[in-house]
């Protein structure tokens, strides 16, 4: 059977490790941290995990419509390409730090990149 990207990376446990690393980068980045200001960090972390799981091709399905819905309010607050690039950059750095191979990183980044128009509600 062909393994999904999610399985090759190491499944749920690997994603858990990646989430904290990724979330920390996002929170300290002044360009985007204000989008993530929230009182409940655990809820926010769960959403970050949903994001990464999805980017790794994990079991949960997100449609383009879901992506639009999730980011609609953020776009109204000014979410644009520069923010998208910043998040994508942190994702790439996270994967590098975890020692994920270049080819897999390329795959993840192209999955993430394909959502740009939906995330930015264009």
């Amino acid at each position, binding site marked *: 059977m062909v393994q999904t990207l999610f399985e090759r990376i190491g499944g749920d446990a690997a994603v*858990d490790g990646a989430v*904290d690393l990724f*979330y*920390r980068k996002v*929170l*300290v980045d002044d360009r985007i941290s204000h989008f993530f200001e929230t*009182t409940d*960090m*655990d809820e926010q*972390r769960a959403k970050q995990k949903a994001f990464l799981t999805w980017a790794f091709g994990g079991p949960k399905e997100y449609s383009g419509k879901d992506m639009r819905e999730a980011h609609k309010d953020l776009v109204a607050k000014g979410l644009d390409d520069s923010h998208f690039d910043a998040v994508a950059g942190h994702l790439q750095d996270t994967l590098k730090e975890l020692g994920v191979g270049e080819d897999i990183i390329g795959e993840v980044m192209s999955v993430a990149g394909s959502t740009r128009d939906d995330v930015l509600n264009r």
Partner: protein
Amino acid sequence: MARLHFEDSAYQNRDTETVLDTLLRHQVSVPYSCRNGVCLTCMLRCSEGPVPAAAQKDIRETLRIQGCFLSCLCHPIADMTIGLPDDSLVFGRATVTAVDKLADTICRVRLLPAMPLYYHAGQFVNLHRSDGLVRSYSLASLPRADSDLELHVKRLPGGAMSNWIFESLVPGAALDIDGPHGGCYYLAEESDRPLLLIGNGTGLAPLFGIARDALASDHLEPIHLYHGTRYSDGLYLDRELRAMATAHDNFTYVPCLSGDEVPAGCRRSRAERAAFADHSALADWRVYLCGSPAMVNKTKKLAFLAGAALADICSDPFEMTDKRAVPRD
């Protein structure tokens, strides 16, 4: 074979399994402890379907008629729709054994539960006043060392329960309590991780319990406790904690004062600031944060950014039911 409907899912019960077994096999997270029908922790409530009598034999009448049963003793005879019991249903009696003033606005309440309570130091119970007023208080006592439950209550201006406790609660009085609740406690399997405990006001109550639990469990790594308050009167366990620090090489106690008068031996700082000034790299640490929600939520983020994994930060914000809350330091 019976099917169990729990929240939005259904689970197949196997012939020899109890309800608890089935739920755990499916990784459904429900509270349980002794698995022997003793501790009552695994109590669930059945809203549809028959409840076997054996699963209800030790359950109080008032709860039995609501459909409460022990999931660890329950072998279903037909399909059941089950759920966690409403907290307010599951309480026991406790007798007040002592009320001692530890500071101007802080008192220690000791309670002896009628039925033994299986708990970890640092969890909390809900106190029920007879008119229905309910508030949560954290457990500073250590089950293996103390026969009574110990709570530290801070008197708040205009606060309904805390003023009543100060003015009217006397030894011999009976109260209903429910619990234990909460996940803020020491994990014995983590004896090789450094611990950072930060609390303000009576946020010290759970931390005192957790620190004693860790020391009694022969914790191997350092345990750092930072207690913050405004005036030195609020350092209400100063003597006990200094004695613990003297007795245990791996335990440090750092009293922090945010007011103007700071006696020798105390830090002029907020507890969280002092803690991060001393410890800035928290990867692999376990962090406990208790006290005012403002402090706890802010400090959680700082601990995370200092390298602690979010899953390794246990916190108990002392949320108040009344949202007009004034700062509680």
